[in-house]
């Protein structure tokens, strides 16, 4: 049942992308119960996720950027 801080942070990262299993999340919660550092990190990590969602960032795909770059280089 017991996990290290490293494992805890790995599970925490995975859970930000909904890729952690229920069992892993249970282990993380238990770890956070006695490890205040990881508990704090988990909280901040969740905040980061919600900030990213709220910002609704748009990105150009790598392909689109490649096209842009080529276009620009031709004009250099």
């Amino acid at each position, binding site marked *: 049942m017991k996990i290290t801080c490293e494992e805890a*942070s790995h599970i925490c990262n995975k859970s930000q992308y909904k890729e952690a299993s229920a069992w892993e999340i249970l282990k993380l919660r238990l770890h956070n119960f006695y490890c205040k550092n990881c508990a704090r990190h988990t909280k901040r990590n969740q905040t980061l996720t919600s*900030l990213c969602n709220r910002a609704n*960032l748009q*990105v150009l795909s790598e392909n689109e950027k490649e096209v842009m770059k080529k276009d620009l280089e031709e004009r250099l």
Partner: protein
Amino acid sequence: MAENELHPENWVDRYADYLFNYAVARISDVEIAKDLVQETFYAGLNSAKNYKGDAAERTWLVAILKRKVIDHYRKINSNKGKAEVRINYSSDSDSDGDWLEEQVADPFSQDGDFVLENEELGMAIQECISKLPKKQSQVFTMKTMQGMSTEDICNELGINPSNLWVMIHRARTALMGCLNENWF
């Protein structure tokens, strides 16, 4: 003030996403926003000789993009009839709320604040991401913004899942630190 120089060969990598978000926030049409970013780069190249170096490269490009956005709105509004005010039902929806009274701005609405704040937040995140090492920012963006699966990213970049999670971890930790002062 430190002298700034232009490096057009790095523009796309460094500023494309930042400018793109700036444009999308104002145009809300992804395709047009993309075109405007492209045009901004062209215009930047053409007027590179006028760059005096007293603004940072990005600030300078944003200023150009700002003009492009204004020009875009001028163009679509100059077509005859576009300025006509329609005092009628909302024509393009059958849904509830197409009576005029229902479309009056809600004085208690905080949507505007939210929109502004989220835009600011978006630019702040974008800025922090651009400070990350290239590989990290790539992995983080693919995973978080494009919502790609771990497997797809690994295939595309030729890395294994544990590499990916290490990069995600570093990127997220760096971002937390970078956004810390204002947003946590």
